[in-house]
Structures are given as structure tokens and as C-alpha cells.
């Protein structure tokens, strides 16, 4: 069963209108004539309110998507047509729903389709964009600074020095170690599967629970009057502070520890996320990444989050991480066997 929830033209138009509108304040200009016209024509959606008067973003959402962060080289337009997107989704669904061959290594690991983890079996947030990046307008990350290039080279050299992936637990990726998933951010890019979020609001706070590794982002709102923690306090998820700008929740995150870089970002990264409910079942999620130590200019991306039924179940990744343990055991056994093989008499 493939989920094909075609957004109506009205909602898509509304989403695009909000996209327009959010650009204006960021650039520090008044609303453009085009945006005003779009607003007048489209009667923008107003979210219901929580009992304390915040626009209500609560519920379960997904930003699962087939759209990549950067625009493919072969594409020059910012949007696909409906037909092109349907074709891309069809191809991806065929690819992802392919069953693994019994007895092969991919099958032993796990077959995503068995658990409904592949995107073709889950709800995904349809997007006509050819890239999530909307600025720079070419849909690509901005040029990397000299400092960013130097840091990337250092990271690569350090990776080289630390040995093979199966030499030690810490040589593995953060997600294999169940420390955190790469796409969790912020910004909250999708994570391939389980790209699911729960939003709960209380006076002075918004909480976003990321399903992957049960990462709860507790975001104090500015009414609470809190500054980010001192610079010495650095987190994998950074420290987030929020405020409402009309219908939009704006969340600024700093204090990253730099150990989970986003496309080579540094610990000086600052992420500004904007959540706007543009329809009952859709939040437009837009974010800007600023990191002078890495990119010559800030960059901005946008993707819809689609409402899903929920609930979210506990993702106890570390507690069930038999994979990492067993693979290390296997690697040591292989080495031992190879050593015994080499020591066997009669072998030249």
C-alpha cells in the first residue's frame, strides 16, 4: 500500500504563499506586493489556539520526504511538476519496497519493508520542490570557507588515523552507536525512517519529541525570559530558545558541541527554525543555518511536516544495540580465525 496523499492545489498554493511571506521579515523588508496579493487571494490559514493562546502546533507530524537537501545537478527549476514527482516517488517506492533476498547480509541486518519502515509504506510529506534548500536560489549549499575546508581535511585525517570501522565502537557513526541520529539536528532533517515528531505546548514552553532515540527538545519561549546557557554548556542538540512571531514559532539554537556536524558545520553554528501551521494537517518548516566558520553565506531550506495519527513508541536504541556489540564480536573472531589460519603448519 503506497500512501499517495496528493495535497490539494489550494493547500499547495497556501504553502507557497507562506514561503513568500516568511522571506520578507527575514530580509528586513516590508511585505512585498506579491506576498500581499497572495495573502489576499488565499485567506491564510489561522491555527487553532491552545488554552493559553499560542497557535496550536500540537500533535504528531512527519517530515519524511523524497526531496534531497541539495538540488540534483541535472535539474534547473525550483519545482517539479506533479507528474515528475509522481514518477520519482514511483521509482523510489519500487526500489525501497524490494524485498531483500533471504539469507543475504542485507536480509540478516533487516529488511525495512518487513517493519513498514520504508518511506513507500509510511506517510510522507509531499513536496514539489527539487531541493529542500531554497536559498541560495540554485538549491545548493553555499561555498565552504577556507576555515571550513581546513576543518573538513582535519576531520578526514583524524578518521584515517583512528583505524577501521570495526576496530572500536567509537569508530562507528553516531547512529550506529545510538548516540544520535544524523538528521535529528536541529535542523530536523528527515532520518530515512521514523522521521516522526510529537509537539506538546505548555505555557512558556514548546516541546518537540523526536522519535529517533527519544530526543526531547524542550524549548523555553522568550516570555520565560531565558538566555541560552553559558558558552561552556554545549549539547549535541544545542540549546534552543523560542518566540512567537504572529502565527510562526521561531526557534534559535546555539551551544552545539560540534560533535555531530551538519554537512561539515562547526560548533559556532546557529540555526533559526520557523514553524508555521499552514493547514490543519500541515506545518511549513523552514530553517536558516548560519555558520561563518563553514559557509560563506547563511542558507535556508524549507519542507512541509504532515500530520500523522501517532502515537510515537519508545525508541530505546542504545538499550537494544545488539548490532554494534555483535559486529565487534564478529570482527574480533574473524581476526582470530585469520591468525590461526596463518599459523597453521603446512601453509607456505
Amino acid at each position, binding site marked *: 500500500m503506497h500512501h499517495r496523499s496528493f495535497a490539494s492545489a489550494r493547500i499547495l498554493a497556501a504553502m507557497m504563499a507562506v514561503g513568500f511571506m516568511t522571506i520578507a521579515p527575514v530580509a528586513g523588508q516590508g511585505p512585498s506586493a506579491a506576498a500581499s496579493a497572495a495573502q489576499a487571494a488565499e485567506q491564510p490559514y489561522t491555527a487553532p489556539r*491552545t*488554552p*493559553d*493562546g499560542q497557535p496550536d502546533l*500540537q500533535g504528531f507530524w512527519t517530515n519524511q520526504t523524497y526531496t534531497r537537501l541539495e538540488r540534483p545537478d541535472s535539474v534547473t527549476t525550483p519545482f517539479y511538476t506533479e507528474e515528475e514527482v509522481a514518477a520519482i516517488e514511483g521509482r523510489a517506492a519500487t526500489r525501497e519496497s524490494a524485498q531483500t533476498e533471504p539469507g543475504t547480509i542485507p536480509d540478516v541486518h533487516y529488511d525495512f519493508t518487513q517493519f513498514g519502515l520504508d518511506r513507500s509504506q509510511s506517510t510522507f510529506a509531499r513536496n514539489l520542490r527539487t531541493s529542500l534548500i531554497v536559498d541560495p536560489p540554485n538549491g545548493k549549499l553555499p561555498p565552504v570557507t577556507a576555515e571550513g575546508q581546513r576543518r573538513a581535511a582535519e576531520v578526514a585525517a583524524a578518521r584515517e588515523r583512528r*583505524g*577501521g570501522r*570495526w*576496530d*572500536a*565502537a*567509537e569508530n562507528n557513526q553516531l547512529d550506529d*552507536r*545510538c*548516540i*544520535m541520529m544524523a538528521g535529528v539536528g536541529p535542523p530536523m532533517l528527515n532520518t530515512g525512517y521514523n522521521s516522526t515528531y*510529537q509537539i*506538546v*505546548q*505548555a*505555557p*512558556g*514552553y514548546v*516541546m518537540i*519529541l523526536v522519535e529517533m*532515540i*527519544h*530526543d*526531547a527538545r*524542550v524549548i*523555553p519561549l522568550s516570555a520565560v525570559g*531565558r*538566555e541560552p*546557557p553559558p558558552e561552556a*554548556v554545549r*549539547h*549535541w*542538540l544545542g540549546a534552543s530558545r523560542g518566540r512567537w512571531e504572529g502565527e510562526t514559532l521561531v526557534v534559535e539554537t546555539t551551544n552545539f558541541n560540534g560533535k555531530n556536524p551538519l554537512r561539515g558545520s562547526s560548533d559556532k553554528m546557529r540555526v533559526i527554525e520557523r514553524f508555521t501551521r499552514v493547514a490543519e494537517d500541515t506545518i511549513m518548516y523552514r530553517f536558516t543555518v548560519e555558520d561563518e566558520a563553514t559557509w560563506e553565506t547563511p542558507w535556508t531550506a524549507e519542507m512541509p511536516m504532515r500530520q500523522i495519527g501517532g*502515537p*510515537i*513508541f*519508545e525508541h*530505546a536504541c*542504545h*538499550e537494544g544495540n545488539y548490532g*554494534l*556489540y555483535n559486529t*565487534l*564480536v564478529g*570482527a*574480533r573472531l574473524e*581476526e582470530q580465525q585469520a591468525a590461526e589460519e596463518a599459523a597453521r603448519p603446512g601453509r607456505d
Partner: protein
Amino acid sequence: MRTRYVLLTIAAAVAAAGLLLVVTPATAQAPAYRAPRAPDGRPDLNGIWQALNTAHWDIEPHAAGPSVVRELGTLSAVPGGLGVVDGDVIPYRPEALAARDENRANLLRRDPVIKCYLPGVPRGMYMPFPFQIIQSQQHIMIVHEYAGAVRTIYMDNHTEAPADSWMGWSNGHWDGDTLVVDTTGFNGMTWFDRAGNFHSDALHVVERITARSPETLLYEVTIEDPNVFTRPWQMSMPLYRRVEENAQILEFRCVEFVEDLIYGHLRKPASQ
């Protein structure tokens, strides 16, 4: 003689009454304090809270004791405590008591929290880390600093646990001004404390959370697990608001801290 007998009788009666009071459902002793209201009219339990007792080390009464790791000296020695269990003693079945003692003798290998595993319920509520209550009408979140453990309390659409888990499946409702949380669906792999007190996957936890002053909550827990205990039993303690202006839940992502403990022996040996 006779006077003494009467006095003894009165003492016994008073003691019995006292016992009765202790056993009486917590509602009877709920404090008279009336909490400020959340915007939906319910008592406002929002805030960052933390226990200030020694239940984390041992929920039963215990004298101070040494660290199980000699090198840590007093750094991980156990502070004495009067306990949080009503009646002081957990009513273990005999074989379960033996298992508890075996746990206690093998803490370093067996305590799941040492490996940064999720703490379960109620243990997370009285570990020496703050947690935050984020209270909305449909969902009340409990976000722990320790291991980023998190619990969703479903205030409507109550369902059974879809599968067993570390933090269980929590359904909540309001009983007057008390938040009552009913949690089942545990996997049986969590403990109550650092003294080996444990339960099985049949654990059923009922928590009652009541504001008792602007800066404190009364936290009462009823534990039921026929596989391990001869009868249901209760714990109670105050929880304190973290009143610092800048109080906030920080990150204690401890997986990284225990990797060497869990996987260190599987490291590739340095080439000979």
C-alpha cells in the same frame, strides 16, 4: 498495673489508627493546598522538579555505606537514608528477596542505569537529576535530564501498551486536583534503585502527583507485581521545584560515557 494496661491499650489503638492512616488511600492525606490553575483549569504541575532524598541509592531505610568501587572512595559512597517505602520494608516473595540480594551483591554488572539504560518508572522520578513536566490537555510529558528519558502520559484515548518498553505505557486522569498516572507495559529490565530492588514485566505502577505548596509536589506511588511481591506496596516523597531563575533541563547523553564500559573489551588489540 491496671493503669498501665489501659495505657498500653490506648497506645495500641493509636498505633493501629496510625497504621490505618498510612494504609488509607493517599487521597485522605492529600494536602489542603490549592494549586494555581493551568489555562485549561487543571492544577498547574508545569515546572522543573527533582527529588531531594536517597531513594536513588536505596528506597528502603539504610545506613551510609562505602562505594562499590574502591578507587572512588567517598565519591560514590552511599549516604544514609530513612527510606521512602511506606512501612519501610518491601514485601518481597522469599525467592524474589534472594534475587534482590544477589542483585545487590553484583551491582556493577547488573544495575541497568550503570550502562546508561532508560531508568524506568518510578526510578527516573527520584534519580539525582531534574525532570520537567510539560502539561497540555491531551498529553503530559515527563522529560528527564538523565539519559534523555521521556514519557508521554496520555490523558485521553487510553489504550493498552502496544508492546513492552523501558519506560512503560502511561495513561493519566485527574482525580480532583491529583494527577493519577497508570503505567504498565514494562519490559522488566529496570530496577527501583541502586540497591538491587527490582520488579518483573508484570509491574503495574500507579502514581499520584499533587501540588502540596507552590514549590513542592507530593509524589505517591503504588507498586503492584504479583511475580515479585506478596501484596501491593507504596512509596511517597516530596518533589521540589528547581527555583533557580535559569533552571533548565540540560543534556545528559550518557551513551558516549559508557561505550568503553560496554564495548571496550571488544576493541581491536594494538598490533603486536
